């Protein structure tokens, strides 16, 4: 990533223009041109530096729900349980972590009532209880990069 790439990643995280030629307008603010910005964005996505470029939706405000979940899984059973958890399309950000509770993931569903059903299903499939830590209040969400 060169200096322009870093500025694109940092300065274009929000506020993308809503006009006919938004990339041209955003490019002007970055001191480049539309073709260059589009080419850079395509490459940043191809190389996986960006997961995507576009609207970031708030699942809850769209009527959906999500929750942070944790499980305490025996080490010898970890791969099996992780695979069973990952098989659900509602699961994102599943990590093994260094703690008694060693498997942490986020579930997102299109309707709040689906969350307890999904967690019960995961508990039945894996044989381990699932700790549900639903979000009550959001204090801060943002990723800042040092350019």
């Amino acid at each position, binding site marked *: 990533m060169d200096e322009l790439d870093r500025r694109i990643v940092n300065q274009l995280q929000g506020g993308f223009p*809503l006009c006919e030629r938004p990339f041209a307008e955003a490019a002007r603010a970055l001191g480049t041109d539309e073709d260059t910005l589009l080419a850079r964005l395509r490459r940043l996505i191809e190389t996986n530096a960006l997961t995507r470029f576009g609207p970031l939706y708030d699942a809850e405000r769209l009527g959906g729900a999500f929750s942070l979940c944790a499980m305490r899984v025996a080490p010898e059973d970890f791969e099996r349980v992780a695979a069973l958890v990952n098989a659900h399309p509602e699961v994102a950000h599943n990590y093994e*972590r260094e703690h008694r509770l060693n498997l942490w993931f986020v579930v997102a569903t299109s309707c709040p009532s689906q969350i307890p059903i999904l967690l019960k299903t995961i508990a039945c499939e894996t044989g381990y209880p699932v700790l549900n830590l639903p979000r009550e209040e959001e204090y801060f969400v943002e990723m800042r990069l040092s350019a």
Partner: protein
Amino acid sequence: MTAAELALVKATQHGLPLVPRPYQALADDLGVDEAQVISLLRAMLADGRIRRIGAVPNHYAIGYSANAMSVWDVTDEAVDSLGPRVGALAFVTHCYRTGPTTCSPWSTAAAGTRPRARSRSSAPAWDAGCGEATCSTARASSRRPG
């Protein structure tokens, strides 16, 4: 949510078309006009259904190789003043109060944070930065995606 809004969410959830007139391209796909796409997006931004429109970075690919998640048992009285202070730390990316749960080791309220450290050695500094809060922590470092 209207049918037009739902169609637009589905058409854009993996990103905007990377073409000079992305809203026109979406309008063509959805059978509406460009001005309608722009006004729907503007309305969804205004009411918070869209948080932002822009680049969504992949933190692993851009050099953030480690992340740690920390869950704190904080009293109900303190949690709403401590939450924004933890969130204001430069290396914290998410800070929430999470719900009470019947089988939780964290009795009443917890602030969960997910700082991304550039290297694993940054994690102790993060603990130290939060040290003034007199509460127990359970730091859970990510070993790998599960």
